């Protein structure tokens, strides 16, 4: 089993890291310091490790790190920061949809993917859209509320933006986070992440 240098594009940053073939994308991301990606069940049931891979939400525990090379990876942290939160992150905070917080990153990623495709989901569609994400604290009520609020805010901001731009449809490409300068990180950063 040979380790090789794999280039991973995460939240707009480029990492070159020596990675063994049996490493999952989840393990690689956490070792690179992206500890917002949570390790829950490691079998695709809980959704805590969800990331966007080329705009599609996937369980990173079921992707090999080598398979993610050359693809755009976005984690919850890549959507927004404490200073500049994404409207979905804001809505989760505003509605009290976060209790222990372990499922939240995955919930937000799944919500992002859902709203990119369906800007105005019904409650059933919200529940189906998040059916691969488990929360053991909240009973899901506030989470559904958060998605509804986020959808409403995003629709409002995209309609005001499109009236400015003279466009009729919201953006669906999932790329509205600010482009980040691409940096190269040396191999030795791999494995240096904390385990929080």
């Amino acid at each position: 089993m040979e380790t090789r240098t794999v280039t991973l594009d995460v939240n707009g940053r480029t990492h070159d890291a020596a990675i063994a073939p049996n490493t999952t994308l989840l393990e690689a991301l956490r070792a690179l310091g992206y500890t917002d990606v949570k390790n829950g069940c490691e079998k695709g049931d809980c959704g805590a490790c969800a990331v966007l891979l080329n705009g599609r939400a996937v369980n990173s525990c079921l992707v090999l790190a080598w398979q993610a090379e050359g693809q755009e990876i976005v984690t919850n942290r890549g959507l927004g920061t404490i200073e500049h939160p994404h409207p979905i992150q804001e809505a989760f905070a505003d509605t009290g949809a976060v209790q222990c917080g372990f499922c939240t990153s995955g919930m937000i990623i799944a919500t992002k993917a859902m709203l990119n495709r369906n800007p105005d989901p019904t409650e059933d569609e919200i529940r189906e859209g998040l059916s691969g994400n488990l929360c053991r604290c909240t009973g899901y009520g506030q989470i559904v509320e958060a998605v509804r609020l986020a959808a409403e805010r995003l629709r409002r901001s995209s309609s005001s933006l499109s009236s400015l731009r003279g466009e009729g449809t919201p953006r669906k490409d999932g790329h509205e986070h600010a482009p980040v300068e691409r940096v190269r990180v040396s191999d030795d950063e791999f494995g240096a992440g904390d385990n929080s």
Partner: protein
Amino acid sequence: MTLPAFDLLQPETLGEALKLLEATPAAVPIAGGTCLLLDLRERKRTPGTLLDLSRIEELHRIEVIDDVLVMGAMVTIAELLDNPRVEAHAGVLHEACRTFAAPLVRNRATIGGNLVHASPAADTAPPLLLLDAEIETQAEGRKRLTPLDRFLVGPCETTLRPGHLLTAVRIPIPERPPRWAYEKIRLRKADAISVVSAAALAAPSEDGPPEVRIALGAVAPTPIRAWDAEETLKGRELTAGAIAVAAKVAAEETCPIADVRGSAAYRRREVEILVRHCLSDLMTPSGGGGDGN
């Protein structure tokens, strides 16, 4: 738990993949990985080499070639759902995909992987059996087509030989669109394995009653066509009486197991009910799918 050690081959073309597989016939192809990686983690399988199919562009295509809908092995369940050709020419498959696991899994799981994994509860299989799907497999210098009902031979068992790859699933597109119906019983509304599933299709015929086909999931060692039940409907109109007989016969030709999701008796009883529902949907003008619904 970490994955066991393995080498990972990542061919860029189908030709390269077939060469690698000929040289390393014990290599296990990995498609979406949503089942295989679980088996590896639990050490149910410990292959020394995996062959990653994700970079092979040919396997990701959905095409119509000579009135055949050709779906590459690496097409994901989400891509099937997004594809208007699949919805138009294989509506019953499209409907089953809507109930397949959860969105995160649908974005990785593939049609080829679902069939090679060959679970008795594989969601894509009953609709594909109805649609007379053929499985295209390739090895270095060889290509063959196998009807799906001959490809699936037992729980997690197919006729796929070492050194061969499932490359595509092919569905002949009928001249006139069939009507269809699909029902799946699960323990909750979403992200749940099928306890029992049933699908039915009525192919219009030139003269006389339509040809009715019935397929069932999770009630036998493989997903099955209910041939005996179909036989009772040959040349007959779908009356309430005929439907009741066919549903009973369908239940009799199953051999379900009992597991955490249901007893064998429950499953057999549900087959009768689901088949009755599906066949009734086929005769209701507004019911079921097809006809552009």
